[in-house]
């Protein structure tokens, strides 16, 4: 079994077998981070470039650590310190980076479709680390991995995804991921944060968070992304916290052994109370740990085999 593709761009394009392969491979790589010597020589001599056009701590660090623990050389380029500031276009930047012969470019960009565009133009592998409000495939893979670790299976689980669905690439990738594996996903948020046609992705849609949380096995909260909206979608953060924020009382509606997830960074007291975020049901930090293992698996499966020249 192999991942027969040059790039990882979306969850939508992945088959069930491919998702299974990535998750199984990630389980092996998780052990690497638990040793004293957190490094294997698997991808020595490879070069991986993190090209981030949007701020990120967790995801960029996670990709960088994943690359380094496999002995590849990781280079980080962030918007603030790049030639973008001098007016260079994205495709020129990408072509110049490719001229230095990297094996993989990890890209995050505010515009949906950017990784696809790069993947078409570049012969190296491209990994989508989040494109606009489109997809964030490695986040969904690490969420699947984390849920599977705790629940052993995904099929027939009830998953609640709550928050600003319209602007959330995490929500989109996770709806694709969990419905593909047979879970029942309910997306909830204020009407202003639910995109039209959402149910066509195969999930239930509601404006009532309690309906989504009721008997849920997994409650996934999304960040209220103040940088992506003019704040006209909700009256106030306080109002949002009261109606949609996950507190102990709302969480009590979920299944007894429910788990709480959040892609981070969290706004304490807005979409989730500190009590729940730091509570025993919360897997927020485990998600971060698992992110490294999943990204190692993605690098391994994309860069491990030799690719025939097109």
């Amino acid at each position: 079994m192999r991942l027969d593709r040059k790039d990882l761009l979306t969850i939508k394009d992945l088959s069930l077998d491919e998702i299974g392969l990535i998750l199984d491979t990630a389980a092996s790589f998780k052990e690497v981070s638990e040793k004293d010597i957190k490094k294997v020589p698997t991808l020595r001599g490879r070069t991986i470039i993190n090209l981030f056009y949007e701020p990120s701590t967790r995801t960029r660090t996670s990709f960088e650590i994943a690359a380094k623990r496999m002995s590849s050389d990781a280079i980080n380029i962030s918007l603030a310190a790049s030639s973008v500031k001098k007016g260079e276009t994205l495709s020129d930047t990408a072509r110049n980076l490719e001229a230095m012969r990297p094996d993989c470019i990890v890209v995050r960009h505010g515009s949906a479709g950017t990784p696809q565009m790069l993947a078409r133009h570049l012969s190296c592998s491209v990994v989508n680390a989040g494109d606009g409000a489109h997809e964030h495939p490695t986040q969904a893979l690490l969420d699947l991995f984390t849920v599977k670790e705790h629940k052993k299976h995904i099929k027939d689980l009830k998953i609640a995804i709550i928050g600003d669905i319209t602007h959330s690439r995490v929500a989109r990738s996770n709806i694709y991921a969990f419905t593909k594996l047979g879970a029942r996903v309910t997306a909830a948020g204020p009407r202003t944060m639910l995109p039209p046609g959402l149910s066509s992705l195969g999930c239930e849609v509601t404006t009532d968070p309690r309906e989504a949380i009721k008997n849920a096995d997994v409650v996934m909260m999304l960040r209220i992304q103040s940088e992506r909206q003019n704040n006209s979608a909700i009256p106030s953060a306080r109002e949002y916290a009261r109606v949609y924020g996950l507190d102990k009382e709302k969480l009590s509606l979920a299944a007894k052994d429910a788990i709480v997830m959040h892609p981070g960074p969290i706004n304490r007291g807005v979409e989730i109370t500190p009590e729940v975020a730091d509570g025993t049901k919360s897997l927020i930090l485990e998600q971060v740990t698992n992110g490294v293992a999943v990204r190692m698996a993605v690098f391994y499966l994309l860069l491990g085999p030799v690719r025939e020249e097109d």
Partner: protein
Amino acid sequence: MSTATVMDAQQMERALSRLAHEIVEKNNNINDLVLLGIPTRGAFLALRLRDKIKEIKGHTVAVGAVDATMYRDDIGIKKEAPTLKEMDIPVSIDGKVVVLVDDVLFTGRTIRAAMNALMDFGRPLCIRLAVLVDRGHRELPIKADYVGKNIPTSMTEGVKVLIGETDGINEVYVKAEQD
């Protein structure tokens, strides 16, 4: 394709018993012994050796598995990234006598990779190698300390070890062509 059986179940059993006796003879302090099999079949053979050592000495030695895949030298050369297998180092290997266990010793490259993997887990007193079959054709300066059976082969032949745990049958055969 022609195949020839070179060991049947009984011969395998005897070879493993002899390996267990040899390991015990060479290692007086059995408490310092750790058997680490190379998955898939080596890991099961390590378990069998543990059972046989228990019969001989009445003591259960630590047993585990060391997957060398991440340390292989052919990643990025083959069309497929090799499938990762189980890694299970149950005890600290610092100062221990580690006996690597595999079914077939061929080029020695897997053993090299396994030794590198082990070094990242600790600093064993020494590493020994036990194999059920040595078929020759080493590509690295590696030699087994305990050999169940030497089977001279040509480069084009393949040697296959079947064990009950994974294959439902215990047998070693040589076939005219490699996989």
